[in-house]
């Protein structure tokens, strides 16, 4: 490294730090944290669906959901980013990110319903299929992103393809406004991807 220029050495250090950071973020959670998150989710849904709060019901539900969580710990939580402690992460996700996401998606759904009503009355459609690059890599993140894109106004996800570590979405757009990948991505995804990048990698 002695003969490398100063700015080049600085750039190399920056790239190495970024690679270290991203490989740290891409590791899986430890097994007991995966079991914990799955168990919390399953137990909350047990409490809502059963609807009884006497002690035998709660103890039975806790034991059975713990058994199911130990068996199926990889299905739900394989793709969550590894940042911070489990409790702070769970509190941040369930108290801030999920309510904000549900609030935003409720108003986008209302807007898309009214836009379909306008399209049905006026028939001012100009359909086309465009291709958009996504910054997410994980399966769960891509699933949630595709579902949210289907519920936002004027777009419907047709297919997802992963090539060379990059994910592309094919989107049927009812009123094509931009063909360029960057502009179409900004118009279609909006701030949804920024929300999802905080949870999934």
């Amino acid at each position: 490294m002695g003969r490398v220029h100063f700015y080049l050495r600085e750039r190399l250090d920056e790239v190495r730090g970024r690679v270290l950071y991203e490989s740290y973020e891409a590791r899986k959670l430890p097994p007991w944290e995966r079991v914990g998150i799955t168990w919390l989710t399953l137990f909350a849904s047990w409490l809502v669906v059963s609807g009884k709060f006497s002690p035998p019901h709660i103890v039975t539900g806790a034991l059975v959901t713990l058994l199911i969580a130990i068996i199926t710990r990889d299905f739900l939580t394989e793709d969550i980013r590894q940042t911070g402690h489990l409790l702070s992460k769970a509190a941040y996700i369930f108290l801030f990110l999920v309510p904000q996401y549900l609030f935003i998606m409720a108003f986008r759904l209302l807007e898309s319903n009214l836009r379909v009503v306008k399209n049905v009355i006026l028939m001012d459609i100009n359909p086309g299929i465009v291709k958009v690059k996504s910054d997410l890599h994980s399966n769960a993140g891509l699933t949630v992103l595709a579902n949210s894109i289907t519920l936002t106004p004027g777009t419907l996800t047709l297919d997802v393809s992963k090539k060379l570590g990059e994910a592309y979405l094919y989107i049927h757009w009812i009123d094509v406004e931009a063909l360029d990948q960057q502009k179409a991505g900004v118009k279609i995804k909006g701030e949804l991807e920024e929300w999802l990048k905080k949870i999934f990698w």
Partner: protein
Amino acid sequence: MIALLFLLFGLFIMFFGALGLLRFPDVYTRLHATAKCDTGGAISILLALALAADFSLTGKLKFLVIALMIAMINPMVSHAIARAAYKSGIKPKAVVDMYAWDNP
């Protein structure tokens, strides 16, 4: 009163969804009408039922569980129908078709 407003809004959205299913030209644009209007209309009607029914709190929460399930499952099913229609050879009436460029 609020329950009645939600119920009327759901009826309005469902009516225009069915009208879109009749008026739009091909499979993909019809899927636009059904996917969005079914999700929004069903969630609105379920909220009206949860407000109007005289159940306990957990009985009302079950309506919200059904609404969340509809909001998660309906986009997946419309995505599967659109992909199956494309794979079985139905061409879209579109100005640009980048899916056919990449999968000749």
